[in-house]
């Protein structure tokens, strides 16, 4: 099946589903049709696991005025779709009114589609094995410090379509490719891990992935205790910088938490929330990002939104319902599935970021390190980021992937340290925002960033 044939198929199913809804005298309905073929292979130190399959189903919202019901089913079988519509209708009948709900997306309005790579449809298990062979050829396993190297390859293709009784009929297609390598190394009582990856909407070269990850892990061996507790500047590599900011921004930029009054930035519109060098954009039209799509998960066109401009909070992100509840328009940020993934058609739309981008400003990582008299370089994603208090902004996290910086030089790796502070304070205490933004694998990409002060202890 070609990508065009997939598009025709999902649009047809979506359209048919709305016709079934009309046949069943359902006053208002929305069909979200999802069809994705996925293939995955992992090699954990020579232990191979592989999986493929077709994830296919429909999420159906039915409304009676402001009463809304949702049900979903796997597959596209006609009678199953009809019974699911009836089920959603029955839930709507007994649901209390949702005062925020004002109908489904009306009319068809699409933005630009991101890159699609038809070559991904031609990949097979043999090509995945070949990719693993390429990655493993870069590794010299005679180094006795290596505990294990693992590899992974994943590709998928398909798309989704949205149709509503209000006249929306639109779709967006997906092609994705990802490969990764992860190294575990040890020396004496020191055990370190590191990895590298490529991902995107096209087939990517895997050259350098495994050797980069291994090199990074080996360089972290020989760590020493920090010894004590001290307030110090911290310098974050671009990917770790993104991970660090991810958990504070997810809630703070959300229009749903703003409407529900659980957003700590709820009263900060047009106020300074970060240093003036910080500009944060949500890019739903990034052609190389998985989120660069024609429509969001309820059929609105995706767009690019400036959330923080020169440190001033300008807007939150909205889907249709929460946007209207805040007297704003949707920003094309309806998503399904949530931060931890999940099956999109099994979820109603909620507000989620597309691709958050921190605008690049000044110096790269090496330049930032050179300006530190004494500080800490963070080179791996700390654990505990999920435990940050999203209301107060307080965080305390630990990492086994950090180095001591003295007089502008990286001195030695550190054993496990904890890093504590407050997100809202630290956003106003950034020393340098870098010039070297990277694809992080998180819903946010950031350059290297230096903060003036965090509490470091072990």
């Amino acid at each position, binding site marked *: 099946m070609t990508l065009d044939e997939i598009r025709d198929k999902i649009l047809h199913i979506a359209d048919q589903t709305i016709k079934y809804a009309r046949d069943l005298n359902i006053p208002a309905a929305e069909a979200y049709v999802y069809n994705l073929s996925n293939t995955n292979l992992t090699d*954990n*130190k*020579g*232990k*191979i696991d*592989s*999986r*493929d*399959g*077709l994830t*296919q*189903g429909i999420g159906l919202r039915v409304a009676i005025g402001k009463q*809304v*019901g*949702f*049900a*979903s*089913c*796997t*597959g596209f079988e006609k009678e*199953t779709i009809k019974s*699911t519509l009836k*089920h*959603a209708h*029955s*839930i709507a009948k*007994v*649901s*209390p*009114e*949702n005062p925020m709900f004002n109908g489904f997306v009306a009319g068809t309005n699409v933005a630009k589609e991101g890159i699609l790579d038809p070559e991904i449809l031609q990949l097979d*298990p043999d090509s995945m*094995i070949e990719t693993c062979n390429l990655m493993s050829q870069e590794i010299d396993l005679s180094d006795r410090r290596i505990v*294990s190297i*693992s590899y992974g390859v994943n590709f998928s293709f398909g798309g989704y379509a949205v149709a509503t009784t209000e006249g929306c009929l639109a779709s967006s297609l997906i092609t994705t490719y990802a490969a990764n390598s992860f190294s575990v190394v040890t020396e004496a009582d020191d*055990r370190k*891990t590191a990895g590298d990856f490529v991902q995107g909407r096209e087939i990517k070269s895997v050259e350098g992935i495994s050797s980069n990850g291994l090199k990074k892990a080996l360089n972290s061996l020989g760590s020493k205790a920090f010894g004590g507790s001290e307030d110090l500047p911290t310098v974050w590599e671009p990917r770790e910088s993104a991970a660090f900011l991810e958990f504070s921004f997810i809630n703070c930029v959300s229009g749903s938490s703003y409407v*529900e*009054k*659980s957003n*700590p930035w*709820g009263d900060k519109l047009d106020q300074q929330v970060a240093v003036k060098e910080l500009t944060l954009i949500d890019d739903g039209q990034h052609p190389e990002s998985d989120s660069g799509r024609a429509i969001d998960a309820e059929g609105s066109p995706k767009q690019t939104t400036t959330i923080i401009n020169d440190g001033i909070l300008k807007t939150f992100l909205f889907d249709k319902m929460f946007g209207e509840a805040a007297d704003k328009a949707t920003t094309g940020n309806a998503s399904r599935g949530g931060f*931890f*993934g999940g*099956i999109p058609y*099994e*979820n109603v739309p909620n507000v989620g970021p597309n691709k958050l981008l921190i605008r690049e400003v000044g110096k790269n990582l090496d330049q930032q390190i050179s300006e530190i008299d004494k500080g800490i370089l963070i080179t791996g994603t700390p*654990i*505990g980021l*999920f*435990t*940050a*208090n999203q*209301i107060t902004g307080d*965080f*305390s996290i*630990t990492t086994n992937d950090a180095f001591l910086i003295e007089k502008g030089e990286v001195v030695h790796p550190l054993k*496990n340290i*904890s890093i*504590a502070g407050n997100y809202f304070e630290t956003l106003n205490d950034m020393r340098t925002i870098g010039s070297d933004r990277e694809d992080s694998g998180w819903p946010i990409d950031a350059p290297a960033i230096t903060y003036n002060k965090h509490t470091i202890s072990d």
Partner: protein
Amino acid sequence: MENENILDLLHKAVEKGENLGVNFIEARYDDLNLTTINYTNEIIKQSSSLSRKGIGIMAYYQGTPGYSYTPELTLEGVKEATIRAAKLAKSTDSRNKIKLDFDSIPAIKEKIEVKVKKHPKDFEFADKLDMLKRGVTAIKEQLEVTTTIGLYGEIYGEKYLVNSEGTELYWVPLMVDIRMGGVVISEGKQSQSFTGWGASTGLEFFEEKETIPEITGTNAGTYCKEQLDAVAAPSGKTKTLVSPQMGGVVVHESFGHLSEADFVVTGQSPIADRVGEELGSEHVTIIDEGVSPYGGLYLPYDDQGIKTGRTVLLEKGILKGYLHNRGTAKKMNSELTGNSRAINFMFNPIVRMKNTYFEKGDLTFEEAVEHVNTGVYAVDMSGGQVGLDGNFMFNCSRGYLIENGEVTKPIKNTALSGNILELLKYVEGGTKEVTIKTGYFGGCGKNGQNGLPVGFGGPDMIMDKVLIGGAQ
């Protein structure tokens, strides 16, 4: 679809796979129904009723697995999935260095149905919503909140398994759950709470003394109120009394995952090849169990059709074994433990935990608090993370100071962290009462299979040298 038709389809898949030259086929069918209600600020923010139905085929070729799944419940769809699974197994065999073949065992033909008083399928959506409304009313009776949250979740359905040995297995998973929470943002003060749990039973669970919605709501309100005047926890390494739910999560996330044999056979686990070693104090015994006398998750069989048993992982501090699927058990010359689980038909079974808990000690609660004397009582957690090396960090969302041998003031959210392999050496005792918690919400995540229901618990455990992250 009638049961006989499903069994016939699964047998056809086994037959097709064997004709393709693979050594063994497992064919699974799931028909699961999931209902969730998110009742935030007294409106239904999200409600859903999901039907998740499909077939998954696992093919084994010379100890190399390949898995494929399909939502198409037709002979053509199932045969196509079987062909793909066999192709994956055969194509990847050349690179596979860790062959996990397994010995044949006698076929099982069993049908397990659970009898409950109030099966959720027999009750209306409105009945379930009403329980949340009752809980929210109870929250609001405790304090003026900015946001109220009520969550209801249920899962039930059918699972079938047929394999090349002739096993035909049928059982019915079931889980219900209610959570309540509150958020206060007012006049410079901020606090939040979230509490509740679930059970592998019917809705009668919410008529029990501790789990009626009014009690869960009252607790959520009370905990939120306490947080408004909470004090900062002392920073540094502190003697800590860890509640069953907190200790259960620590033992699951930090130690349980290290004991999963797929992680052990590759040598990646830091406790690989260490059976017989002393990893903890004499007060530490860790169990993983499918059907436990302490409650929790009801899991009679795993997704390879192996009856779940009681596995002693650590006994009085000594490492006794690991958690296995059929392949890792054979590879490591171990007993079958029934730990091969898949979250749904879209995933292959992998080694997962069931109910993982610390075994009971011999102290009363009062004796345990007195033993701590000065420290922290860590009760509830909200989120956490662990590393491959045993390092962990959990957010203690509800806790109290222990001063002069008594539980006193509530503490602010704080991080608890450490390394489980060091921490187990500093366990100084446990109380006599074991509680296992489970639920629809949360669950365990591994290899993209997130939210798998598990049970975790123990008694209140005394642990020394827990690193408290300080005030948050």
